[in-house]
């Protein structure tokens, strides 16, 4: 019961944060809502027994990645979002589509799948040691390959963010 309450509590926060992200018009607010989502997700991980994941979630995601976002927002001095009407497709086709898809998936997950098993609170089993064993043995190759990924990301970020000598400005549609 407690489990359910906790789940619902954090779940509600999580969803509220996600919805808030959508609703807020200033990117800073959105970013902060995302932090809320991530933090509450960490709690959900804990509920699922994944302690190490929960920790990393807070450190890497909420800590590192979101900071990156915030810095960018600050750097670019992003203002409030303008509600331009650039796309009818997104609203007329995309949103209903997503809704239908979501309902179908949810229905599948709830009703048809074999995932009726439940988890109990406090059964922490994702200990760092076990995870390390997996990571450095079974998933050794992906782990190593990740370095290439990171290398690329670093390089890309450096190249793209560095200032080119001359920038040809494209025409702007409207002010």
């Amino acid at each position: 019961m407690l489990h359910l309450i906790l789940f619902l509590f954090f779940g509600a926060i999580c969803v509220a944060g996600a919805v808030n992200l959508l609703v807020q018009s200033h990117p800073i607010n959105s970013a902060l809502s995302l932090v809320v989502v991530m933090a509450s997700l960490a709690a959900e991980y804990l509920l699922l027994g994944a302690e190490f994941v929960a920790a990393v979630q807070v450190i890497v995601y909420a800590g590192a990645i979101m900071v990156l976002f915030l810095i960018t927002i600050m750097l670019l001095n992003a203002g409030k979002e303008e509600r331009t009407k650039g796309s009818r497709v997104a609203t007329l086709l995309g949103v209903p589509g997503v809704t239908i898809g979501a309902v179908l998936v949810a229905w599948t997950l709830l009703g048809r799948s074999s995932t009726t098993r439940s988890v109990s609170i406090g059964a922490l089993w994702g200990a760092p040691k076990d995870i390390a064993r997996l990571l450095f043995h079974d998933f050794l190759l992906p782990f190593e390959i990740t370095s290439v990924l990171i290398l690329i990301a670093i390089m890309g970020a450096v190249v793209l963010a560095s200032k080119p000598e001359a920038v040809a400005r494209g025409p702007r549609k409207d002010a």
Partner: protein
Amino acid sequence: MVPLSYYLVLSGILFVCGVLGFLIKRNIITIFMSIELMLNGVNLSFVAFAAHWHALSGQVFVFFVMVVAAAEAAVGLAIIIAVYRTRETLNVDQVNLLKL
């Protein structure tokens, strides 16, 4: 006791929120955040399934996803900066030089 499917539905909701965010937000950075939201939803699924199968590999995936998310964030934000340099806007509706 919480049925696992609740978690899954929660993850689905997050994912869908991410998709919707992508569709309705105009600010590029926010859109990017929506993607992060989607990835977070997926992560929850992984963890939940890991619990379901009692397979730790599911949790390991989450790390990889995080790494990828981080890498994407680095590159993505750099790209956003590059775009902002050339276009001086963060409104996605105004980034439409290439079309038709």
